[in-house]
């Protein structure tokens, strides 16, 4: 190598200036975007597989970390209000009014004294997560409506919540189904604040946004008034597997 130009030999293995190298950066960028698009296309099958795997893992996970993974099994806390007051047996009230003959206000003890119904079904959220075989116990909504004496011209029921913001609605026919509860217990314990306690609605056959948390009012109305999420684009008739463009297995 005696005849090597000293200027070049100063930097053995000096690469070409970066401007003339391979545009790997562009390829990585475009590749990432392509993978993202592929992920959207493959999402339904990927999601099913992951839910099965993570659901099983969550059952055996003492750390609870799997619960933080997307679709990691279990419930997620959604609140639309800035803060929600805590209510208990002393200050909780549920009013039934509107187009009824006998408006009534129930305390928590009043509700506990009524016949309780237990349902064990899957919970399906419209965002994808599903919790299998979740027990709910409470009073059938139809019982409270019958006790209040619904007037002939009534056609729907509107629910209000003591978070001050959330609302939900059902048609009267839907509300009279036997799988719709004013729930006091979930997963075999009293419903805690985070899950909408002490009393929440449980609409077994519909996506879980219909099951309003922190239930405080049942108003019988003439027509269905869209609830909180329904104003933001979700279906009012939210049958699991037959609404919101989803094809989940029915829950009830």
């Amino acid at each position, binding site marked *: 190598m005696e005849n090597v130009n000293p200027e070049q030999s100063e930097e053995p293995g000096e690469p070409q200036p970066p401007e003339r190298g391979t545009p*790997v950066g562009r390829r990585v960028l475009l590749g990432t*975007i392509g993978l*993202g698009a592929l992920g959207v296309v493959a*999402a339904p099958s990927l999601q099913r597989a992951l839910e099965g795997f993570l659901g099983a893992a969550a059952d055996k996970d003492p750390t609870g970390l799997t619960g933080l993974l997307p679709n990691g099994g279990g419930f997620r806390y959604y609140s639309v209000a800035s803060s929600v007051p805590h209510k208990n047996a002393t200050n909780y009230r549920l009013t039934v009014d509107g187009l009824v003959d006998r408006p009534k206000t129930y305390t928590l003890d009043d509700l506990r004294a009524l016949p309780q119904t237990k349902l064990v079904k899957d919970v399906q959220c419209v965002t994808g997560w599903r919790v299998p075989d979740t027990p709910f116990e409470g009073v059938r909504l139809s019982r409270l409506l019958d006790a209040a004496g619904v007037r002939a011209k009534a056609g729907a029921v509107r629910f209000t919540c003591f978070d001050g913001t959330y609302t939900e609605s059902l048609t009267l026919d839907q509300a009279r189904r036997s799988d719709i509860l004013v729930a006091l217990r979930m997963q075999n314990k009293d419903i805690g604040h985070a899950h909408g306690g002490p009393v929440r609605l449980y609409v077994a056959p519909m996506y879980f946004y219909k099951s309003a948390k922190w239930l405080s009012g049942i108003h019988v109305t003439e027509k269905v008034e869209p609830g909180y999420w329904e104003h933001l684009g979700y279906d009012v008739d939210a049958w699991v597997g037959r609404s919101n463009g*989803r094809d989940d297995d029915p829950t009830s």
Partner: protein
Amino acid sequence: MTLRAEAHTPPATEVRRFGPAQKWVHRTTAALMGVCVVTAAFLYVPELAELVGRRELVVRIHECAGLALPVPVLAGLVSRAFRADLGHLNRFGPHDKVWLRAALRRDKRRSQRPAAKFNAGQKIYAAWIAGASLVMLGTGLIMWFTHLTPIMWRTSATFVHDWLALTIGIVLAGHIGMALGDPEARSGLRTGKVSREWAQREHPLWRP
């Protein structure tokens, strides 16, 4: 007095690494990304969601920060220096292959980590985070403007958005962790200047 004269013009101990354009693009992008990550945590981690509530407001802030995320880079394109750095980040030479192979073998010897202005790891990170941010933007827009696409797309977009968010969180933590481990790299981005000694050690093939 030659000695004096030399003292007045000392050999440059500092070299210029970044100009104001690169500094501000990095700063504003980092701030917007920070807002995205923090609001995402408020929406996502149950304990934090419970603490903060106000779901609609947090969603609104998250959307605005996400939408603004590409703006600093696009605005930076008017700067010649910034465009030149994008070129450095894009182009890979043979030395980058050496660097990547050593990184895979966890070989930390300096001789095995040749790098020009940016090392191969920084180049890959820059390209990946740019692509990932655009995927987040696309899937985020599908989730935001629900009436534009069939609802099935929203569920799929949510799935990709959630998992990529987790991945970005981990990669971003690595990026910040490496910056914390190299104070001079950080001060280089803050002041625009680094010592010649650091440049020769970390970026031996860089000719400032």
